[in-house]
């Protein structure tokens, strides 16, 4: 583990970070004396949404006791569920937060993300027995998922991490290898201030209900489907 100090940033602008509430109520009218963009309508006639830009920092990570630990779910058939979780991992690491990732289906540990995790000294463990897409499910798959969940349950309660990623946890839930209610209860009972990101297709309703933020990644176009291209290093693995 490399030695790191928590990062705090000053922008040098002397602007107090008073704009945190800018994000609340996305439809609230903009009160600043702002110039409207020249293009306000899209080709389809709809209003162009105006992206809100915060004044730059300084940002500070509040202590666990003072923050709302979010339960984030990345689901859907599109690309970007695990990938976005990795992006959060990078950000949080940059903020000096403790991050950890447990993968419930994946088995390989020579992928790009594992290499980076080793380089940064981040805990990343593949708990699964591999993808079951092209083979039949064995007792090993189920046993590994259950053993993995036992471990993660301990991790959730103990509160070692600021950001904990549970990659593809939805799959053993959907397949009935893990008890859905038990998983959701354990997630709800997580240690104070822990942000948890759950990824995977077919997020069960109970999980969505318990979550603070849910994103559905939708396929608009995918070459692995339409052109039979294979997964590529750096992009997919």
């Amino acid at each position, binding site marked *: 583990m490399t030695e790191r100090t928590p*990062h705090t940033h000053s922008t*040098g*602008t002397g602007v107090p970070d008073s704009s945190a509430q800018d*994000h609340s*109520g*996305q439809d609230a009218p903009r009160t*600043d004396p*702002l*110039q409207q*963009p*020249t*293009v306000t309508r899209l080709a389809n006639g709809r209003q162009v*949404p*105006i*992206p809100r*830009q*915060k*004044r*730059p920092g300084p*940002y*500070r990570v*509040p202590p666990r006791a003072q923050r*709302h630990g*979010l339960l984030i779910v990345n689901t859907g058939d599109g690309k*970007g569920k*695990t*990938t976005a979780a*990795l*992006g*959060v*991992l*990078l*950000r*949080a*690491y*940059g*903020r000096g*937060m403790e991050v950890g990732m447990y993968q419930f289906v994946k088995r390989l540990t020579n992928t*790009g*993300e594992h290499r*980076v995790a080793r*380089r*940064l000294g981040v805990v990343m463990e593949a708990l699964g027995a591999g993808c079951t897409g092209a083979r039949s499910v064995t007792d090993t798959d189920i046993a590994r998922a259950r053993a993995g969940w036992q471990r993660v349950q301990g991790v959730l309660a103990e509160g070692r991490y600021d*950001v904990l990623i549970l990659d593809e946890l939805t799959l053993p839930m959907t397949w009935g290898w893990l008890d859905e209610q038990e998983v959701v209860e354990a997630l709800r009972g997580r240690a104070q201030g822990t*942000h948890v990101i759950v990824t995977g297709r077919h997020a069960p309703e109970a999980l969505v209900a318990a979550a*603070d933020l849910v*994103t*559905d*990644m*939708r396929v*608009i*176009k995918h*070459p692995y489907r339409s*052109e039979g*291209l294979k997964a*590529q*290093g*750096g*992009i997919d*693995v």
Partner: protein
Amino acid sequence: MSTDRTRRRGLLLVNTGNGKGKSTAALGILVRAAGYDFSIGMFQFIKSAETRYGEHIAAELLGVDIVPLGDGFTWLSEDINADRALAERGWQRVREVIEAGTFDILILDELTYCLTYGWLEEEEVLRVLRARPSWMHVVVTGRNASPALIEAADLVTEMHLVKHPFREQGIGAQPGIEL
């Protein structure tokens, strides 16, 4: 996994939609690619050079430069010509690194806004993207990806918002998660 350029088919990826995860997923690709020692460039068209986000700090540790091209106040700006000039200057830099083939993976964060607001000529942008080296992966992020951009892309994902704490619980952006 090989970094051999001759055996690679460069993809144009687009992350769009109103949900969280467009830029974040691009950062995830950055993480993966850094693991294989690809050369990576990330240019942020809107984010201000004044701000250092968590990703800037961590990417530096991985030896990747994330370059903010915007002034961060773009929508607050009083001078639309200044915004356009800034976007054009940024695009010039990006065009140079595309034509020079500097990076295996190039991330153009929030580029779609420059197209939506008409600061950059979409035809010109798409022409340069199409003419990039055959092995170069490009990731474009931002809301409202145009039909022409989607047409040009190999892989398009729409991040769809299902539930968001800003909206429903009034919880603000948190460092490490959004910033």
